[in-house]
């Protein structure tokens, strides 16, 4: 990659993405070959909000490259609770480690941290902002199942607050991809993301009806709609029900080789019965996190 940090998916060129995905495929094919590549190096995991899954995925990737990890632990136990700034935390951690993986509730936090340190910073989620390492593993999975060019993808759920959606949408503008966004009106893509997609000349359509989109997409990327986004439970139940995937819905409307993806964890937006169908791609997607993050760390460390 050309950059020192991975802060947003917007910074990734097609060449950057392809380089990471190709390296990831090599690691995927032969994990042992990478065992000593980063021996003696240390990666700091700074998670200011809980995310067991992403953190474990980075830790596994680092260890498979031969690197060690140092973990800030939970925010409750750290100096953050005592009011230390993120900038100070980053500067202190820089002295311990060769790279920093940061998850933080505020948008722009990874950019801020990167301005105060000389080691690479990976944004592992900044509030409703970006989650670019998730995007790389999403792209890897899409490439395996449908290819990244001449792609038709449906992205459904909470498009307003869903950072995985924002990052994926940005990254897909590098490819010949038609993006169909499906959400209730209140959870549409934020203005800033629509602005970027427009600037990038992306092929974008917005929908409210999932059934109408299903027959026309190769990939369906599902995200969770959270109860707290709605003023009352009834409204939430109505929307959640409308976008809930079941084997029956898929059998009736989707093409046979549709790949259903989800950044996980899911709650009930995908019925458990879908897991046993050919559509289910989300667990494989999660597994892809390790080789993709290995490739990412390999290029930054």
């Amino acid at each position: 990659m050309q950059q020192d940090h991975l802060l947003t998916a917007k910074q990734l060129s097609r060449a950057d993405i392809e380089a990471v995905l190709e390296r990831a495929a090599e690691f995927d094919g032969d994990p042992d070959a990478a065992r000593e590549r980063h021996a003696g190096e240390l990666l700091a995991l700074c998670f200011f909000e809980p995310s067991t899954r992403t953190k474990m995925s980075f830790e596994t990737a680092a260890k498979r490259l031969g690197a060690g990890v140092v973990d800030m632990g939970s925010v409750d136990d750290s100096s953050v609770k005592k009011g230390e700034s993120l900038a100070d935390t980053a500067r202190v951690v820089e002295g311990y480690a060769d790279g920093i993986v940061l998850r933080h509730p505020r948008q722009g936090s990874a950019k801020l941290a990167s301005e105060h340190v000389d080691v690479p910073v990976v944004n592992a989620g900044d509030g409703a902002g970006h989650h670019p390492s998730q995007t790389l593993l999403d792209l890897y999975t899409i490439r395996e199942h449908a290819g990244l060019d001449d792609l038709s993808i449906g992205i459904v759920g909470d498009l307003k607050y869903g950072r995985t959606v924002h990052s994926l949408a940005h990254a897909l503008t590098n490819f010949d991809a038609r993006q169909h966004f499906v959400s209730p009106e209140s959870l549409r893509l934020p203005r800033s993301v629509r602005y970027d997609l427009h600037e990038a000349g992306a092929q974008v359509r917005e929908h409210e009806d999932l059934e109408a989109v299903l027959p026309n997409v190769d990939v369906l990327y599902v995200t969770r709609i959270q109860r707290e986004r709605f003023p009352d439970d009834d409204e939430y139940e109505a929307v959640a029900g409308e976008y809930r995937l079941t084997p029956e819905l898929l059998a009736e409307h989707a093409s046979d080789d549709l790949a259903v993806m989800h950044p996980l964890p899911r709650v009930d937006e995908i019925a458990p019965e879908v897991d046993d169908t050919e559509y289910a791609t989300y667990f494989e997607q999660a597994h892809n996190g390790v080789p993709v993050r290995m490739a990412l760390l390999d290029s930054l460390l």
Partner: protein
Amino acid sequence: MTETELRVSKIQNGTVLDHLTAGEALHVLAMLGIDGSGGETVSLGMNVPSDRLGRKDVVKVEGRELSDSEAEVLSLIAPEATVNIVRDYDVVEKRRVERPEEVSGVLTCPNSECITNAGEPADPTFAVLDDGVRCEYCGEIVRDDITAHLGDGPQSV
């Protein structure tokens, strides 16, 4: 001598902001953090007839020279503005404001979840778009009413 030149020559030391978009004079003062509490002499003309603009506002501030970063943000509110720096009754510097590529340190981000609103050592920085500004940290776009997002006044004078 035209009426405008006469007005310009009336302050001893300070800044005359001329050719402000009509109706923006009070926003300009707010942007500069000038509310009269500092004791400086401030005068303003609103809807003054202008050859170039039809109507314009004019603001004169005694004892205060506009910094470059202030002039840049001024360009967002009043793209036709001219800044006259006055010393000892003479206009020693006269320039048009230029629309910068980015502005830093004067606007605050309207997104409460933005890291620049968290007490961190971050200068809120905005990319200037054709029709608004955009936070470089969180990506939030501000189109209408930029003056509503002015910070607590400029850090440098």
